[in-house]
């Protein structure tokens, strides 16, 4: 059965997932040496400045209050929730690539999974900070966790806020464990190849004494599979829960049963876009074209095309259902205020980026051209941010009562927090590239041997 599938796969014209025939040693040296070169010093310092801006603004907000933001009633949620949902969504591609595709035994995940997982972690760090600042009194954030307090007050579990806490803390913990588990054998490689004694010692501590014993590999593989199996439903549940923040309320444009699948598809769409945005320049800079081939780009673009098409379909469905419901407010909010209201221009950017750019991926040449794909991925990131803005602010500013309509204008702090969080993401990512093997080396070597065996069997 398996051999049938393999011969079938080989008759299709597909690009290789690994170019050339490097020896194990060459492959190891190529992939591990960037972490000994002290890369990106200037960029790290530059992005550190942005990260400092982020945390300064965060602390300013915590000490002063969220009056520093542009939100006010009726638009009580704005940039913070938009950014929160955007970052969480971006994180989802990492788990999807590393967990879902490992269960599907997709070979093209191998070179890119660690990148994507690291991206998940850093995106989640950003995402988690927004709701905390949004509480207004961030120092009481722990009240959301059920603990036996002297006040004998407990959280209320019919609120989506408590679900968010559970979902995001679980998601971060599981992503971290999964990422670290995948990293252990490669940290052992770093321990064994690092040029200086000090570095060897540091990597040795983090490698936890990994020897590569056969029995260890066996347990390791099974446990990795278990974590992948657990992370797969987790990733779907997390964005469903994020969508419940909206869907369990009663506002027009939010109170909708299509929200969970709509949000999950949107999350994967934006997440894959972010993976490409990060991957394409890096692939060129670190000369990884032999391990991250056009095949990888093509596959990721196809996932974007599929999830983007689900998103586009849901846009249509949203507006159709608003009309079909016959509900006056619903019809006005979705079919008049959204496209033609004060934020109409943002809505049209959203349509152009998300519907237009996902459909342009039907063209094979776009999927296989790194630079076109890079532009598409940037536009999709923009588009998915505007989508969340339209959902959050568009709905809140045009609610049921015309007397309580009101517009939202972002403040300087809003903008600084957003650009600061982008810098913080870049900062963390560069540190990761500087210190940690960013391509799973042992997995590539294993895949190489599998491919060689397949080649010999034929």
């Amino acid at each position, binding site marked *: 059965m398996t051999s049938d599938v393999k011969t079938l796969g080989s008759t299709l014209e597909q690009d290789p997932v690994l170019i050339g025939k490097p020896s194990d040693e060459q492959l190891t040296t190529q992939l591990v040496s960037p972490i000994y070169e002290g890369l990106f010093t200037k960029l790290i310092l530059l992005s550190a400045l942005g990260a400092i801006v982020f945390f300064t603004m965060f602390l300013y907000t915590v000490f002063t209050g969220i009056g520093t933001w542009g939100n006010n009633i009726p638009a009580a949620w704005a940039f913070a929730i938009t950014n929160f949902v955007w970052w969480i969504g971006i994180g989802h591609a990492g788990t999807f690539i590393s967990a879902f595709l490992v269960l599907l035994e997709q070979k093209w995940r191998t070179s890119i999974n660690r990148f994507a997982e690291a991206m998940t972690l850093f995106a989640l760090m950003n995402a988690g900070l927004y709701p905390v600042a949004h509480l207004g009194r961030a120092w009481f954030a722990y009240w959301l966790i059920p603990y036996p307090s002297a006040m004998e007050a407990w959280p209320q579990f019919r609120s989506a806020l408590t679900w968010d806490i559970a979902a995001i803390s679980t998601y971060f913990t599981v992503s971290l464990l999964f990422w670290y588990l995948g990293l252990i*054998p490669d940290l052992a490689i770093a321990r064994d190849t690092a040029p200086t004694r000090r570095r060897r010692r540091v990597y040795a501590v983090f490698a936890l004494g990994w020897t590569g014993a056969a029995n260890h590999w066996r347990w390791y593989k099974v446990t990795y599979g278990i974590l992948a199996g657990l992370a797969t439903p*987790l990733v779907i549940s997390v964005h469903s829960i994020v969508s419940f923040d909206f869907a369990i309320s009663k506002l027009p444009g939010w109170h909708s049963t299509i929200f969970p699948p709509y949000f999950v598809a949107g999350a994967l769409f934006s997440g894959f876009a972010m993976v490409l945005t990060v991957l394409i320049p890096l692939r060129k800079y670190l000369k990884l074209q032999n391990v991250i081939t056009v095949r990888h780009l093509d596959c990721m673009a196809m996932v974007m095309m599929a999830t983007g098409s689900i998103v586009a379909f849901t846009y249509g469905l949203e507006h159709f259902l608003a009309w079909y419901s016959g509900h006056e407010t619903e019809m006005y909010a979705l079919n008049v205020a959204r496209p033609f209201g004060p934020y109409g221009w943002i809505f049209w950017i959203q349509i152009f980026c998300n519907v237009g750019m996902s459909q342009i991926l039907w063209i094979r040449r776009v999927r296989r051209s790194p630079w076109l794909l890079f532009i598409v991925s940037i536009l999709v990131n923009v588009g998915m941010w505007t989508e969340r803005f339209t959902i959050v602010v568009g709905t809140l500013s045009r609610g049921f009562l015309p007397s309580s309509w009101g517009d939202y204008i972002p403040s300087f702090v809003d903008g600084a927090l957003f650009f600061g969080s982008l810098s913080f993401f870049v900062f963390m990512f560069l540190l990761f590239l500087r210190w940690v093997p960013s391509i799973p080396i*042992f997995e590539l070597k294993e895949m190489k041997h599998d491919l060689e065996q397949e080649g010999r069997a034929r």
Partner: protein
Amino acid sequence: MKAGLVAEYGTPEVVIAAVEALKKTGLSRIEVYSPFPIEHLPELPGQRRPLTPLYALVFGLCGAGFAYILQWWINVYAYPLNVGGYPLHSAPSFIPITFETTILFASVAAFLGLMFHLRLARLHHPLFGVEGFERASIDRFFLAIDESDPRFKTDLVARALEESQALRVVPFGRMS
């Protein structure tokens, strides 16, 4: 693996052949070290089936029970609060947290179970003292036999290893 003999090989195929040959001699305390999991490696004697799936299942179910019972107790008994006339025990609202906690407990249990069984988070291993063992994570394959093996006789094992196309055979650890 505390002390014994270790042999170095260049390809996974040779190691597989060596393991098969050694298993026939009745040696039982054999371990193979490789830079990546070797497919089709014959089962080594005396090794346990991975238990982490079991841990994940048991702790996952515990997490589910813990989360649901905690939410129910808090919202029905400890701090009942009428929100929009919904019943105090609203099962659908308790599902998201129950699900998340299940995954959290299962994943953490699987990870910690792995660390515990592999005795990981250790700083040293006798094999790290063998010169050239660094390449076990790069491109070489090692086969070690512990001297505590009841059938272990240094000269016999050394000969068996040399006959198995080993690149070299060296002692490791403090041999008695």
